[in-house]
């Protein structure tokens, strides 16, 4: 790392950011930081997939009002792991509706293994499961957490997906380890056993994402 020296702390921060430069990245940083609700130029790759009719999710961040975006599925690899990309250049790793990774959210999940919970949901069973989450911590290291979770069916629920209303079973997945406790919600469509709507915990920094499938 190169250090600009000798610079004072807070002021230099502004100094560095309000620069103009031959490097457009550095010039734009201040604008990006200050503007907050920055104007979004939709990612062309996203638009291409969206227009081609790729499966779509509407995703919102529970901790922040009005923070939502759209993800489309870009690809599925040999292991059935899908990568979904958003309009604003975030991505999600997904497997059958379960989030197994995030990229670009500030406190990302590098990887996750919710396969036991997924199996319980698919089978429609109440079960105690283990769930593993690998986070990228503040020291740029991968850190894997293990949770013990209770998957429990709550009730039948109708989910309005726009073109049609899905008949679903609502499940709670309540997970804890020594320090952290969270609850995920899954609306599993009867018949197809697809997760049409969910609320999934990512990390302490990000909190919970709410996902709803957008029928095409």
């Amino acid at each position, binding site marked *: *790392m190169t*250090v600009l020296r*000798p*610079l*004072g702390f807070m002021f230099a921060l502004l*100094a560095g950011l309000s620069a103009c430069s031959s490097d457009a990245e550095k010039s734009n940083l201040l604008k990006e930081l200050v503007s907050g609700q920055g104007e979004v130029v939709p990612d062309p790759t996203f638009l291409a997939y969206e227009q081609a009719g790729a499966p779509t999710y509407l995703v919102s961040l529970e901790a922040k009002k009005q923070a939502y975006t759209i993800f489309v599925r870009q690809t599925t690899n040999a292991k059935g792991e899908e990568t979904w990309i958003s309009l604003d250049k975030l991505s999600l790793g997904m497997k059958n509706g379960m989030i197994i990774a995030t990229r670009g959210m500030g406190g990302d999940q590098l990887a996750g293994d919710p396969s036991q919970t997924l199996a319980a949901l698919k089978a429609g069973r109440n079960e105690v499961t283990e769930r593993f989450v690998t986070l990228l911590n503040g020291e*740029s290291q991968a850190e894997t957490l293990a949770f013990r979770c209770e998957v429990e069916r709550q009730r039948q629920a109708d989910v309005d997906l726009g073109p049609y209303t899905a008949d679903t079973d609502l499940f709670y997945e309540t997970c804890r380890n020594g320090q952290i406790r969270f609850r995920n919600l899954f609306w599993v469509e009867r018949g197809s056993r697809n997760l049409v709507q969910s609320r999934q915990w990512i990390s302490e920094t990000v909190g919970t994402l709410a996902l709803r499938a957008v029928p095409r």
Partner: protein
Amino acid sequence: MTISRFFIGLGMGIFCATGPAGATDLRFSASSYGTPGLIDMPTGSPWPDGMLGLSSVLTKDMQKYTLTFQITPRIFGSFRYSILNGYDAGENRYDRSFDFGYLLMEETQYRPALSIGLRDFGGTGIYGSEYIAATKTFGDQLTLTGGIGWGRLASYGGFTNPLGIIDDSFETRPIQDVSINNTGRLDIKQWFHGDAAFFGGVEYRFNPRLTLKAEYSSDAYERETLKMGFDHKTPFNASLTYGFKNGAEVSVYALHGSEIGIRGSIPITPQKPKYPSGIEEAPPTLMPRQTQAALSWDANSVRQKNSSLSIALKDQGLTLEGITIEGDTATVRFVNGRYPAEAQALGRAARVLANQLPADITTFRLEAMANGVTTSRTTLRRSDLESLEYDLDGSWRSFARADFEDAAHSEAAPIAGIYPKFNWRITPYLDPSLFDPDNPVRADFGVQAAASLEPARGLVFSAAVRQPVAGNLDTSTRPSNSVLPHVRTDSAEYAKQSDLEIKYLTAEYFFRPGKNLYGRATVGYLETMYGGVSGEVLWKPVNGPLALGAELNYVKKRDFDQMFGFQDYDIVTGHASAYYDFGGGYLGQLDVGRYLAGDYGATFSVDREFDNGFRVGAFFTLTDVSFDDFGEGSFDKGIRFSVPVDWLTGAATQGGYGTTIRPVVRDGGARLDVRNRLYDVVRNSHTSELEDRWGKFWR
């Protein structure tokens, strides 16, 4: 439908980067000295490892500003700047002091934490004292502390030193030589000598926000009473503290029944930036393999400057400089212009290669570069990328399966038209001079224009020009009283006598003389005060903890106006250096050689560098200049820190903000400040640094 941008820059509160959301329990007990303690008295419990505490204290006639760093789980060190109104016959005293503490014994269920500490061990001794303190917590709310102090901490209620049992000499504290030239020396003969006294106190936490402290103090405030009219009415002090969610605290305290003080403190946890994984956009998605035909790919077009590979890498902030395809292997040379973590650049480059190169190319060799020279070569297999992308243990497995080696000679054929490169930048700047003997903060503010031209790989012409706009660096009225050549003590003249300044104007050449070897030659106006010629060679294996270097310079002192002229003083200066990465983030450096004033000696440095690049360090220099000739402070020493931009903002931006704080700047042990010393230029892409931040490979 409104689409709001998700997280990027949502009122980021970049100055509040003190730990993640949810860190509500971040309470630590700090004294008015800014160290682990009650009100004035120390405690036996350390802070959490790595924590930095910034605190300030105000009373009617006194201000204290302290930076304390929990260097290891057991050791803390502090630097303090105090202003005592009217202390020197009506004049204010600006005092700098250092503290040190060591945890002897951790707290257990039945045993208290036990610490030993030194206050003001190298300053003028106003606060000079030593202690042993024990602290025990009971439940979540109650903490009791008891201890024994010496020196100032035995000025009230003192009794004959029990250490007299060991040796009678402990019973008498030698008279201290407090002349200014004697400051900075370690008063070892005073430590734990003279009378001793007990102190103690209690801390009660009503709730996570509100804490009450009360103490019996063994400090009589003798000097303040004598020189500043302080009235010591009682040995008891009490304080009420309010703690904010991020760990910051504000306290009000009653001091010895006669004064009220206010203390504010902010904890910084370097391990926990506000955005642990960064907020930069997602990496390119790893797509299924494609054939050569499907990619309409051919081995020649990929060598063009505007190839789709080149453009895809550019989109990730990476510049493709060379590529060679042989059989199933692609060797690529690239410059990472965006990511502070080189591992992240490698991860993104590898995914771009996988998406852009045909299926039968299965091995990627990535050559990292710094200042035009290749610094390492990382070999990755396409199949590992594919199998580990969302693997629970993918970070470690991908690191373990990668190979790292030196790249003394690049094996990627250059792409035509990359050079010459030209870059420019206009920025505001702040040039601070902190804690000088007359004024705690001096600084200049202005505009800097910097540009660089690289006509060929490794050759860099660069310049920076500054125009100060406002500031007080030129208000220093302290003439140099140094008996040595004034190699640093007249630095204020450079601020006074300059307007438009040439900060540097250099030609640099970086090269690889051989395996594990790096070279640098620099000529021109090297820094604010010196111009000349500088040459350096560094031996640093990609996979080892040790590096050795040698630097030789011939420099001439520049004119005070910082334009093109020189003064009469010239010197040959240089050092042999050893660098060692002890692991766990501790870096040691030893520089032995000749300094700017012609003195010979050595500089000892230790830094703690967190994996995310946040760095705090300290150094001292001993040379053949006697303590008396050196003057105030006795020898050169200081602390330094640097904070990466991405730690503060979460954005993938290289660089950082840092400064060095010296209690006093003198002429002995002064080193040339040439830019781009090789160790820090090359280490970022070596195995140890890559491993530190390998979690970013998949980010």
